[in-house]
């Protein structure tokens, strides 16, 4: 009764539609450039690891992954750390301006990155953070902190208030209650929020590219710049692309039931 006729066929077709372009990228990353340009082959006839080898040995390539991971991790830590107490406050208390603040946070999550590119460039140049991972990490806070607050607020609201009250009656101080009782209770929520902060920071290109030039250049920027500079090294580009998909693909299994929730800001 749940489903519609022909559902298996529809599902299969849709999944093929999703997987085919990804397969093509993986396929190309294992081909030699000669094979890519000269013939149309559905699988690599002379499989090679040369593109991956190049990325892992050439510093200008692998440093991009390290730079990206650096600001993504800094951003995730900052976002979760500041969002946790705020999520608790929004979930449990009413205070002056709470609704406006909540809306203001959301509006920042939705703000177009293009609007902020230029002022961020000026701001971080002025305070000497330009071209460091901190600039990108702080810039990404503009959408990740609100996201983390919204997601965590949903999870904190799922914890019954009686637990807080019992803990306080038992003589727990607020910080001790927070760390010893609340955080373990919403551990999976923190995991989900961290995952989404990681993801949204990982996939963003515009701000990351604008705020870095040489030292902290993220992998996404290296990919676009290489494409425009010296001709087209399709195999290398494909291999670099495949490697950026891996972090998401690794954790996807653990968060599969929370994907919808994370994208809907904890409101599903």
């Amino acid at each position: 009764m749940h489903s519609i006729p022909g559902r298996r066929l529809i599902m299969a077709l849709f999944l093929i539609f999703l997987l085919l372009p990804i397969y093509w990228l993986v396929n190309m990353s294992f081909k030699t450039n000669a094979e890519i340009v000269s013939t149309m082959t559905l699988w690599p006839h002379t499989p090679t690891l040369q593109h991956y080898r190049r990325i892992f040995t050439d510093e200008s390539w692998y440093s991009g992954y390290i730079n990206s991971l650096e600001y993504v991790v800094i951003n995730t830590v900052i976002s979760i750390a500041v969002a946790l107490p705020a999520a608790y406050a929004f979930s449990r208390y009413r205070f002056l301006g709470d609704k406006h603040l909540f809306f203001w946070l959301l509006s920042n999550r939705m703000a177009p990155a293009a609007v902020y590119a230029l002022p961020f460039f000026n701001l971080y140049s002025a305070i000497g953070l330009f071209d460091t991972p901190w600039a990108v990490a702080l810039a990404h806070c503009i959408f990740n902190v609100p996201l983390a607050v919204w997601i965590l607020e949903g999870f904190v609201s799922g914890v019954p208030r009686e637990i807080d009250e019992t803990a306080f009656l038992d003589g727990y101080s607020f910080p001790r209650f927070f760390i010893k009782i609340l955080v373990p209770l919403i551990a999976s929520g923190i995991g989900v929020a961290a995952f989404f902060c990681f993801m949204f920071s990982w996939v963003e290109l515009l701000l990351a590219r604008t705020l870095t030039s040489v030292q902290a250049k993220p992998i996404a920027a290296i990919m676009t710049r290489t494409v425009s500079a010296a001709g087209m090294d399709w195999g290398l580009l494909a291999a670099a692309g495949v490697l950026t998909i891996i972090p998401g693909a690794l954790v996807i299994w653990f968060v599969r039931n929370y994907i919808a929730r994370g994208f809907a800001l904890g409101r599903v």
Partner: protein
Amino acid sequence: MDKTINQKAWFLVLPVFLVVAFSAVLPLMTVVNYSMQDTFGNNQFFWNGVGWFKELLDPSTDLGGRFLASLGRNLFFSAVILAIEVPLGIVVALSMPREGWSVAACLVILALPLLIPWNVVGTIWQIFGRPDIGLLGYVLNHLGFNYNYVSNDVDAWVTVIVMDVWHWTSLVALLCYAGLKSIPDAYYQAAQIDGASRWAVFKAIQLPKMNRVLLIAVLLRFMDSFMIYTEPFVVTGGGPGNSTTFVSIELVKIALGQFDLGKAAALSLVYNLIILIVCWVFYTVMTNAGSERPVKEGAA
């Protein structure tokens, strides 16, 4: 749920407030400042009042023309992808397997495009659509279509739209699936006893129950497609000509390409205002929906 009034809660919110204020309010002030001035370089600024805004909203000027054209393209793009992704997402959600390992497998594959960096999504389709090395372009051209997204406007549009459908339909599907799963079996049993048709079940039970998630999906998709930058930038670079130049691409061109601070700032503010209005609708929907949310659902 009753909440207690406690002004001390502000201390808990303070870190968030400071971080977001630093990264949002400060830059926004700069934008407002720039939008009223003109510069000839050398850090010399001249007061320009609302001049930029007048120019921006007047289609006969260069700036106004570009803004309105990109806005029109963007709205058209959003409308098209919503018209495709929402029905398709519902169909896919209804096609989800009922139980067993295949549910998890489908969820994982559906989620995969959502977690790919946006520029890589662009790269994937850039490669996939090329007539010489991409499967899609190659097959289409061998079937007799003269498909080339680099030189043909329509092909560029089709590529960008198919790419967005590929990238984001899963989100609509996953949201709808979450809505469908919350329908108790008793509803379906009652419908079966009444002898309701498949269509009647959809119209009377599933659609109303999906109402809220659908609204969220539509608003999220509208907002994100309205801000789209990276994917079309990588695939078409806004071209051929200006045919796929959306508002964000235009804005970055003016701001970082030409360093035309005043114009870019004025455009940013108007752009932001549109987003803010849609965002307010979104917020109202979300918080109203939140009050109907059963408490259990929030449990981890």
